[in-house]
């Protein structure tokens, strides 16, 4: 049994542990050792977030005063069902991706840079967890920048020189987004004189009609929107995902946009509250319109990609559309569907990118031409891809079905059946782009590269299958995710009080 002294410090440890281990990794230098350290840290973080979730479910919101300074003055770490759930997604994905990363990184990154890869990954992990657990508006900005800066460097480690331009493009867009968040937080401080989220939520209802407040809202939504790749602000994403090292793509694709969605939910649901977000400001309508356009256009663009990583990147933007459709609805079922899709999309996209990473490991390419016949030479890897694809489409018994089911339900609840059709139509489009890969890999004669390929090493195949079996497990056993997501949606619709 863990002593109560440690239990009390869990919220701080969630962030401090990876933060301390990052410079420690630099000191270790030997990349195998740094990798081992990263694996241990990720697993410990997973244990911490699991314990935190249990504690939140049993006892309610945890408030932790950083450094012993009481809430409105000091920085508060505030953990409720919403961020305990998001922290579990981030740590869970990291715990599977880092063991997978060893072989993949050794092949793709120069020997001398591998240490930096893990250090950057740990820093990015720190930033994402910090954004998740903090209850302070400014602190969130700082962690946002920690995670972003390390992501830019992670992307630039890719072999292809286009990784550099992709990282630069992301840096420009990401910094604009971060600065917008900073401006938004500044305006919030001007109107309320506080940076603590719970305090902000208390004071904002007194000043709902101020134009400064609405400006703050706009800056925050656009700033976070850039980070979560809300359509038309998604332009940095396809290149960044396509040219980053595979292990980095998996981690970033599965976690960073999810945490940005969480930040958006936290601001509109808890800080501003549903009244300001959906009634004073037409956020719901804007979100749904952008989500539908993004969903359809990016699914459509995905169909015409010849690079599978780029195709999955466009599909990610489309999936963000589903999440935003749920948020825009402003109903409890809608929010619940979005939260479920956060978890589920992390599982399926990580699984798909891992399968693609396995293929890249063997044939050194992810172009459709080179993947011809790969289904025969790498049957297990490709079966994993197909399973992930089925989950992406939303076939029953996979997680993709669960979240789409709730999303369609949320729209039917509001009698918005044309939009429910849009959701189903989006699924149809994903059938097409997943099928293109399946057709090439299973039914065409092998390309020269694919003919020589062997099955991926077990060190990569096992983590891939763990995630894909999780896709099926959580698609059948929905109690945990649906229960927690329902509770989290309840909290967000009520505001922080």
């Amino acid at each position, binding site marked *: 049994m863990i002593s109560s002294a440690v239990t009390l410090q869990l919220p701080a440890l969630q962030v401090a542990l990876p933060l301390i281990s990052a410079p420690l990794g630099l000191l270790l230098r030997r990349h195998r050792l740094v990798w081992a350290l990263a694996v241990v840290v990720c697993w410990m973080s997973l244990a911490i977030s699991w314990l935190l979730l249990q504690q939140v479910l049993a006892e309610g919101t945890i408030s932790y005063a950083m450094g012993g300074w009481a809430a409105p003055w000091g920085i508060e770490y505030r953990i409720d069902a919403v961020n305990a759930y998001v922290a579990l997604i981030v740590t869970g994905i990291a715990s599977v991706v880092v063991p997978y990363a060893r072989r993949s990184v050794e092949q793709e990154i120069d020997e001398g840079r591998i240490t930096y890869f893990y250090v950057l990954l740990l820093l990015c992990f720190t930033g994402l967890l910090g954004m998740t657990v903090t209850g302070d508006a400014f602190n969130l900005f700082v962690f946002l920048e920690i995670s972003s*800066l390390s992501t830019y460097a992670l992307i630039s480690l890719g072999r292809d020189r286009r990784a*550099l*331009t992709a990282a*630069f493009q992301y840096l*420009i867009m990401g910094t604009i987004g971060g*600065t917008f968040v*900073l*401006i938004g937080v*500044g305006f919030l*401080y001007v109107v309320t004189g506080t940076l603590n989220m719970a305090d902000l939520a208390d004071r904002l209802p007194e000043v709902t009609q101020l134009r400064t407040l609405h400006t703050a809202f706009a800056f925050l939504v656009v700033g976070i929107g850039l980070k979560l790749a809300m359509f038309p602000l998604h332009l940095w994403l396809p290149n960044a995902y396509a040219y980053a090292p595979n292990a980095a793509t998996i981690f970033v694709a599965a976690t960073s946009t999810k945490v940005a969605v969480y930040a958006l939910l936290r601001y509109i649901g808890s800080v501003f509250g549903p009244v300001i977000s959906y009634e004073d400001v037409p956020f719901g309508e804007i979100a749904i319109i952008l989500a539908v356009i993004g969903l359809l256009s990016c699914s459509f663009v995905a169909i015409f990609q010849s690079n599978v990583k780029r195709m999955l990147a466009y599909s990610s933007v489309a999936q963000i559309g589903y999440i935003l459709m749920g948020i825009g609805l402003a109903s409890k079922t809608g929010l619940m569907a979005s939260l479920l899709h956060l978890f589920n999309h992390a599982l399926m996209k990580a699984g798909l990118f891992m399968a693609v990473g396995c293929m890249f490991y063997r044939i050194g390419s992810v172009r459709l031409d080179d993947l011809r016949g790969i289904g025969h030479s790498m049957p297990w890897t490709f079966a994993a891809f197909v399973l992930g694809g089925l989950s992406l489409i939303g076939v029953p018994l996979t997680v993709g079905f669960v979240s789409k089911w709730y999303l369609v339900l949320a729209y039917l609840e509001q009698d918005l059946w044309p939009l429910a059709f849009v959701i189903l139509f989006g699924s149809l489009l994903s059938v097409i782009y997943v099928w293109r890969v399946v057709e090439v890999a299973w039914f065409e004669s092998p390309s020269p590269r694919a003919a020589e390929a062997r099955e991926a090493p077990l060190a990569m195949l096992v983590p891939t299958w763990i995630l894909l079996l999780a896709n099926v497990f959580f698609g059948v056993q929905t109690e945990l995710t649906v229960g927690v997501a329902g509770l989290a949606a309840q909290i967000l619709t009520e505001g922080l009080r």
Partner: protein
Amino acid sequence: MRFSQLYNYEIAIFLSMIGFYVLVSRGNLVKKVAGLSMFQTSVFILYISMGVVQDGTVPILVDGVRVYSNPLPHVLILTAIVVGVATTAVALALIIRIKEAYDTVEEDEIHEQDRSF
């Protein structure tokens, strides 16, 4: 009259627009970073202006003074300055590597080279 009261905010808006314009209109990557820096700096001025209390003095305890400026935004902006410096450093490091890989720092020439792939 109004101008003299809010001039620092107007300067902040002016600076941010210059920075943003440079960022969007220039194809040279170094100039883009300069624009980005300027855009960030304008936000620092915005924050520092927020902390001003009318007739207040520097926030150091002195006998006989009761009105102080708010030091919190200053502290916040110190953090943001660090973030800004880090961002500029990462951006410049990336530009050096782009220069090595493409032998140019002009956006259109980079696109030209990538298209011929």
